[in-house]
């Protein structure tokens, strides 16, 4: 976890990096771990529907 978060000391990090780079399976695991947030971020982008925007603004006008 500390390696994946990039919060290790430079020495330990460099040692792990060297291993991961040489190991196909570790490289694959780290790649998919790092890709996961990006995929979910893109997949959960939604636009505010116009009707919801209108009712929000109507409610805010009434209540203040």
């Amino acid at each position, binding site marked *: 976890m500390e390696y994946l978060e990039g919060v290790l000391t430079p020495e330990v990090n460099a040692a792990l990096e060297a291993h991961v780079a040489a*190991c196909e399976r570790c490289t694959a695991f780290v790649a998919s771990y790092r890709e*996961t*947030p990006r*995929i*979910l971020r893109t*997949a959960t982008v939604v636009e505010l529907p116009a009707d919801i925007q209108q009712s*929000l603004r109507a*409610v805010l006008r009434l209540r*203040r």
Partner: protein
Amino acid sequence: MVVPTADSSDETLAARAAAGDDHAFEEIVARYEGRVFRLACRLTSETDAPDVLQNTFLQVYRNLPAFRGESRFATWLYRIATNAALMLRRGRTRKPSESLDAFMPRFDEHGIHADLPAQLLVASRADELLDRQALADKARAGIARLPHVYREAFVLRDLEEMSTTDVAQVLGVEPAAVRQRVHRARLMLRGYLSDLVGVKR
């Protein structure tokens, strides 16, 4: 004199809105309504998001005079929105928690990943393997499956791309706790993504 609002900083707008300037408040709403709605969908559901959105801005309006600028305005507003989402969820049935073990990478007796590179990579190809709508549905379902505390940390840190420090501030926990929750959420979601494209983790 009319002060243009389009290029005013959030903090300037907040001060003007707190002093009773309705145009400044409207500008704040216009700037943040889309982001708050998206956050609300990610933290709750599309059904609950409109309520979260309304409650957020009603509270922002009421609490603006108390905004002192100790944090950035955006962080302050995200805290209100996150709390509005959590309030709505409170009292709903708890979901059974899944064991994290199932999502940890598996190793053989030599300490080598037990899965082949292609299997390990599957999660990162979910967006190539599924069509847009299917991926959006699965992403929502996957995020909803997370334990609540992992979901909140993951949504704020990885989806809204806030700093760990800001997330810690919004959730009222230590940065180390945020990092751990986000890490566990990523492991679980990585597992869900592998599952949904039909390959074991």
